[in-house]
Each structure stands twice: as structure tokens, then as C-alpha cells.
């Protein structure tokens, strides 16, 4: 099934005009604003007409603890830091709120940046990392949200459709930045949804900061994405830090493993994906005994496994793409090793299962949401997605659907002003009710909701919350570290 319209441009951009057609009306699973949405809009909107010089007189989000981190895994736990960042929401203080809506607009354009086509990228260190499947799923979720909004009347203030402007972020020579420039100045989008690869996304959000355009990522789980302190970026999916915390708590606190090792992809995704595993294990007094990177797409892991064998690990953490995870796992099991294999959400994929076969049984993945959640909204989305695309939505598609709906909600209320669109999401105090569950944004505008473990049990992925499995958590101190009487360590 060809899921794409014909390309309009010879460059990497492809544009979807999603008019409110009869077909899409049939497909529509209404993404109507609920009472919370209406109440939140009513609370925020009157404060946004500040003109060029003022700022909304609305309270900034404040957290007492960064990323819900337990005291015993906070960095330099024995020392009171001089300054702790990310506890108070970043403000946008520029002149953007004073820019009037344009008079003549035929469509309301929303940008999409994701890995759609494979290519070579400096930013990712060479050939793109087989993320196109994830990017296409993300684009499908975004497209469905746009189509449904159009089926309900499009941009309601002017009765014009939303339009998705799609750009590939695996463009040549690290040019994801140029793609964002094009979206902002040539395509004139009002907000952007996208980002999977951490390096490309970092390049893109730096551009978004300069240009001043809201950026929602449903697919880049790199913790440092929101740790850039950019007031324009937000994330609607639990990040790798949260997945790391849960995996470490499971392995170290619940199961009591003592000799963890890490085998990971050598790219930025692998390098940054395991930071809190590495730090968490060390801070829980069982440091990683061996960490070995491999080149994405590798088939021979003998060098890495020979080295790891010398350290006799009792649990193996892995971070990399689904296919890589499967090949690594097969190599481990081929040696007769029985250690638990804990990995990231990308292993929850058909590709992983096809390659891993029976070895998949017992694999444990961090996972940013619970797809088995009973929710009519989720069921309606699944049905609409299947009808539209002929496949089941994966985690990228589902989070993209939520993230796009958040942006659409913001545009419907704020109007065509990038700063105000940003404000609607930034100043919202209540969680968004998405198909992935509630999405509460932290002071860093990161999804602070629960994350889960996906465990392959009897040939099925079974999703468990921390509570389901009785996974202990270290003590979380709800007080900024610089205000505590003693340093954070509280073992």
C-alpha cells in the first residue's frame, strides 16, 4: 500500500495537504477537546495578549525534584550543589507574542521532521541508523491527527484546513537545521512535530530556538533534549532517563544483580541512552563491570562478548535499534549465556521478534507507556489508524498522534502566533489526556508520566508498571537539593 502522496519537491521535503475530504470524515475518530482542555484554555488565554514587551502573568511550573530522581542516584549525592537547573520552567520573554495573525492564510501548516528516507548524515556519524520505519510511523500518527482535525472543520477560527509539511531529518551533511529553516521561512509552519535521532534533533531544536518556533517531540527520548533549557521544546513521551531508572531499579533493587554490563550501539543513541544506567548502577554501589559499544548494523559481536565474558556479568543492559538488539541477543544466547537481557523500547518491534525468534522470550524492555491500557479513546485511535494505514500503530505513531493533538489544541486556542502556541502548552497546568494516557509536563516541559516494562512472556509482550512488579524505588526527596539541610544522599 502506497501511503504517501506524490512528492511535490525534488528535495527531501514532501507535503501532505490534508483537506477535510469525505474519506477522512469517515475515518475520523474525534479528537474533541474535553472539559479539562476547555478549562485550561479559559485559564490561559486571557493572559497571552501581552503585546511585544510583556510576559504572561501566569505562574511558571516548578518542580521540587528534577526528573523524579531518587536521592541515592542523584549525581554527587554527598555534596550540596551550588546550583540546580530545570526546576523552574523556562520563560519565553521575546517580542513574539505581539506579532499579529497574518491576514491571508489558506492552510495552517504544521511541520514534521523525521527520518523518512535513508541517507548519509554527519550528525549521526555516517549512514542513517535504520530509523526510517520509526519515522514513517511517527509521520502516520501525525497525519492521522491532522486529518481528523480537518474532518472536524480544520482551524476553526477561519475554517481552513491544517496542512502537514513533511521534511526528512536524515538529510545530507547534518542538514536537519536547514530543513527547519526551510519550514520556518519558506513553508511558514506554526509549530513542528518530530525528531527521533538525538543528534539531528539537537541540531533542529537549536534552530527552532533562534527562529522561535514550538517543537514537540514524540520520538526523541534522549534526556538531554529538554536539558538544553530551550523554552520552545517539549516532549510528550517518557524519556530514556525514566526508562533507565526503571530498568536499574528492576535489576539492582528488585532482582539484586551485582555485576551489570552494558552492550550498546556506538552512535549517540547508544552513548546517551545508557547514561543513567551507568550512573545509577554505580551510585547503587554496583558499577558497570564492562561497557562495550558496537557499530550499528553489525552482525559479529565476538570481540565485545569475549571482552564481556572476562567480567562475568550477571545482567546485561543493551541500548540500540530493535534489529541490533535481536542480533546481539542471538549472539549472547548462542554462547549459552543465560543472563537477563534488559533493553530499550526499540526492541518492542516486529523486526526484533523476527530476528530474535525464541530468544525473545524473557527479554525486558523499558517502555514509555502501557499499550494494554483499557481506554475507549485508545481503542478508537487504533481502529482509525488501522483503517487509514492498514497496520497497527506502534509507540512512535501513537505518541506522534498525541503530540500533534497537543499542538492542534494549542493552535485552535492561541491562534496563529508561535509564541502563544508555545504558551498554551507551557502554561497548561493539567495533564493532556492522550491516547497514550495522561501526559503531565514537568517544569522542563518533559513528559513526567509513568513508564513501564515490556516483558516477553509466553510469546507476548506483557506490560508492567512499577507497582505491578513491586519494583522498589529509592527515596525521592521533594525539595531542591540546594535547599536541603544535608546533601542528597539518603541511603
Amino acid at each position, binding site marked *: 500500500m502506497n501511503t504517501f502522496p506524490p512528492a511535490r519537491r525534488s528535495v527531501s521535503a514532501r507535503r501532505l495537504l490534508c483537506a477535510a475530504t469525505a474519506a477522512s470524515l469517515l475515518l475520523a475518530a474525534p479528537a474533541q477537546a474535553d472539559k479539562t482542555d476547555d478549562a485550561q484554555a479559559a485559564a490561559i488565554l486571557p493572559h497571552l495578549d501581552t503585546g511585544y*514587551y510583556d510576559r504572561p502573568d501566569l505562574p511558571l511550573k516548578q518542580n521540587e525534584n528534577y526528573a523524579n530522581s531518587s536521592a541515592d542516584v542523584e549525581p*554527587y549525592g554527598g555534596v550540596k550543589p551550588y546550583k540546580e537547573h530545570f526546576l523552574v520552567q523556562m520563560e519565553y520573554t*521575546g*517580542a513574539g507574542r505581539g506579532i499579529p495573525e497574518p491576514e491571508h492564510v489558506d492552510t495552517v501548516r504544521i511541520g514534521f521532521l523525521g527520518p523518512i528516507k535513508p541517507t548519509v548524515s554527519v550528525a549521526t556519524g555516517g549512514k542513517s541508523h535504520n530509523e526510517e520505519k520509526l519515522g514513517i510511523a511517527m509521520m502516520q500518527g501525525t497525519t492521522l491527527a491532522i486529518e481528523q482535525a480537518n474532518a472536524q472543520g480544520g482551524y476553526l477560527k477561519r475554517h481552513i484546513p491544517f496542512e502537514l509539511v513533511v521534511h526528512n531529518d536524515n538529510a545530507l551533511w547534518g542538514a536537519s537545521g536547514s530543513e527547519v*529553516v526551510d519550514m520556518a521561512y519558506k513553508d511558514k509552519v506554526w509549530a513542528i512535530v518530530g525528531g527521533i535521532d538525538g543528534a539531528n534533533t539537537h541540531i533542529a531544536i537549536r534552530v527552532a530556538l533562534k527562529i522561535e518556533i514550538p517543537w514537540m517531540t514524540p520520538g526523541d527520548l534522549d534526556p538531554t533534549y529538554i536539558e538544553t533549557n530551550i523554552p520552545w521544546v517539549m516532549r510528550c513521551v517518557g524519556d530514556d532517563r525514566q526508562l533507565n531508572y526503571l530498568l536499574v531499579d528492576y535489576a539492582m533493587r528488585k532482582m539484586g544483580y551485582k555485576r551489570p554490563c552494558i552492550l550498546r550501539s556506538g552512535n549517540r543513541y547508544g552513548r546517551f541512552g545508557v547514561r543513567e544506567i551507568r550512573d545509577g548502577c554505580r551510585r547503587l554501589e554496583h558499577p558497570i563491570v564492562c561497557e562495550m559499544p558496537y557499530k550499528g548494523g553489525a552482525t559479529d559481536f565476538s570481540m565485545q562478548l569475549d571482552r564481556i565474558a572476562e567480567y562475568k556479568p550477571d545482567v546485561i543492559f543493551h541500548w540500540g535499534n530493535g534489529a541490533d538488539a535481536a542480533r546481539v541477543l542471538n549472539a549472547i544466547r548462542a554462547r549459552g549465556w543465560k543472563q537477563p537481557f534488559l533493553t530499550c523500547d526499540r526492541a518492542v518491534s516486529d523486526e526484533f521478534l523476527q530476528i530474535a525468534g525464541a530468544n525473545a522470550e524473557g527479554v525486558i524492555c523499558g517502555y514509555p507507556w502501557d499499550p494494554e491500557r483499557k481506554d475507549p479513546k485508545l481503542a478508537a485511535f487504533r481502529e482509525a489508524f488501522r483503517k487509514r494505514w492498514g497496520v497497527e500503530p506502534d509507540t512512535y505513531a501513537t505518541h506522534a498522534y498525541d503530540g500533534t493533538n497537543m499542538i492542534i489544541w494549542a493552535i485552535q486556542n492561541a491562534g496563529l502566533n508561535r509564541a502563544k502556541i508555545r504558551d498554551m502548552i507551557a502554561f497548561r497546568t493539567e495533564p493532556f489526556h492522550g491516547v497514550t494516557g495522561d501526559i503531565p509536563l514537568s517544569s522542563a516541559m518533559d513528559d513526567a508520566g509513568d513508564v513501564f516494562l515490556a516483558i516477553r512472556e509466553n510469546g507476548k509482550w506483557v506490560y508492567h508498571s512499577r507497582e505491578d512488579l513491586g519494583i522498589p524505588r529509592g527515596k525521592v526527596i521533594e525539595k531542591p537539593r540546594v535547599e536541603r539541610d544535608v546533601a542528597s544522599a539518603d541511603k
Partner: protein
Amino acid sequence: MYPPHPRLLALAALLFTNLPHPAAAIDAAKPAADPGLPYVYTKWEQLTTKDGLPNDHIFAVKADPTRNCVWIGTEDGLACYDKETKKIRSWQEKDGLPWRVVTAIDIDPRTGDVWLGLFGGGLARFSAGRFDHFSQLNSGLVNDVVYAIAIEGDHVWCATTAGASRYNTKTDKWDIFTEKNAPMEEIWNYNVSAHDGKVHLAVWGSGVLEQDIKTENWKVYLDPDGEMEIDLYRDDGNIHVIVTGAVYREKVLWISSYFGVCRYDGRHWHGFYDHDSGLPSNFTNNLMARSAHEAWFATDKGLGACMDDATNTWVSYTSDGDHHTGKAVIMRDNKVIQVVDTGYNVPHNFQICVDFDGQDVWAGTSKGLGHGIGKGYYPRLRPAPASNAKSP
């Protein structure tokens, strides 16, 4: 002033106990003399589209004393303000400017060529009324998203979103610096400056890289604690790994970031935050250093000038654009010393870039360009009360 280190206090106590004359100890116990006050810019003018700028969103400003003008890079065009005639001339894409967004400007002092960094449009040379365009497709420019440029001898350095490029204007040779040949953990270059025999690259995610121009050796300044969410100690090194600017003056390196700013004199580091100094906000888009002791920071909540590092004395300029009023707040450490009514100063509090022009200062903002007229400017501190000052 910086809080004294406990070890220094202990050493001082030890020294004082061994002093031969008790008068020295008595002198030490006296209250410290008032170190004086910094110069405050009380005369400002503002330039906006009403005055002829092509756009009010100012990304770059560069004084050009030779031509007695100021070059201004905006979100939609290049402008030149003639200080004598007070007229603005501008160039947009229709006038030959290769791309609308001008994020960086520097001037070759030997040729007078004006070099332009274009955000998503590469690099341009403006010479004799003609724009020459360099892009990643027709030159060795590593990426078209150019954040900053700096002229260093025969070279034009470009800080781009995917590495740094160095163009030799005499030989036409391009060099590219990325993680492959420089100590860049990440390649996201944000700023570049060239002064006093060194080039400094401010790299988002990789701290500050310093190249010695003679040896071409690199040195890197990272955040010693290595953590994104905290600054462990105030004065232990570069304040954060995500930096936005680095300028070297009189053998002192000043650094800006979105997490505060810092100063390094080759031996000691000092960090400055909005809670312990007059820095208006920790979110600092850019900086320009005037000397080893004075640096100005373009923050999202005003223009902050560290006027004397040794006493941590600052002046922060903020305005109310709706009512055309403004003030300068003189602070020492985190104490307000004086509030000076300056009238309307910077046209908007969201500061993006800053440059010096002799005694004057130029501030590019989110909504226009500010010009502080520095008649009677003096460096550091003087015991002269400002006539229009009032106590907080």
C-alpha cells in the same frame, strides 16, 4: 565580591597571628572601603523599522569605525546605520543578499570586506556593493546554518550547526573542524571569536574549544562536574557544557551559556549567576568582552554588564517598551547599590547580541537595536556618585 574560600580565610588568619605589628590586624578589621561605582549609560537611542531597519528582530550587530557606521543583521535583511547622517541603508534578497536571515557579521580590517553569516543560507562576502555567496554546495563551508563568524588574519571562521569551517581568503583553502579532527564531543558550533592569538569556539554540548593560532593546537574547557542538571561548585571551571559564546580579552576568557556565565583568567574560574551577581538572567544568548574586567551579556531579561569582575559589580539595563521607560540597576554581588533612571534604554529586554563602538555600546534585541552613548565612559569603578541615582 567573591566569597572568600575557607582555606584562604584560614591562611589569612595564620598570617595575621604572625604579623609583627598589631596595627596591620586592626586595619584588616576595618570595614572595606567603598570600591566605587561603575559608569552607567544614561543616554540611549533606539532604532527600529520605523527608522528604516528592514526588520526589528536583530540577530547581529557590528560597529565599523573605519566607515563610521554600524552593520546590523536582522531576520529579514542587512542594514547599515551611518552615524554621521543617521540614515539607514538596507539590503534584502531582492537586493542581492543571498538569504534573508543575517545572524553574524564581521569586518576584515585589511580589506574592509563585510562578511555575513546567513542562517540557513551559508556565508556571504559583501564587497564593493557585490555579494559573493559561499554555501555547503559551492565551497568548503561545512553547513549552511551559520551562527557566528570571526575574522582571524587571512581566515574567516564560521561556527555552523555541524562543525566549524575556516576559509583562507588568500589561498581559497577551506578547513573543516568536527569531532574527527578537533576535541568536539558534539559538533554543534554556536559561536566563534578570534582575539589575542587565539580562536575560541563555543560549542553546544562540547564546552569551549580554544585553538592557539600559531601552533593550531586545541584545548577544551568542559564543565568539570559533567552533569546537565547541576553546577556542583561555582568556581570550578566552565559553568556548563552548553555554551553560547566565548570571548578572549587581555588573556581572560569570558563565557556565556543558558545556565549562567563565567570568567577564566588562566588560573582561576569564577561563575556568575542571576542569584549571586547582577546578571539579569542565567539565559544568556551572547556576550562581548571589553577587557579582562568588563564583559556585557545579552540575556533574555535585560542587558547585563559586569563592569568590574574583582568586586562583582554589575549594571543591568532593562526597559518597559510599552511606556518607553528604562532603568539601570547597579549591583554588587546580589545587593542593589543604586537604581538609575536612564529613560528608555534597550528597546526590548530580550537581548540577542552586543558590540562595542569606542565608548558606545550597541545592543541587538528581539524588537529593535539599542545604542548606548558612552560620553565620559570610564572603565571599572570610580568614587563618583551618579547625579540621577537613587537608593533602592
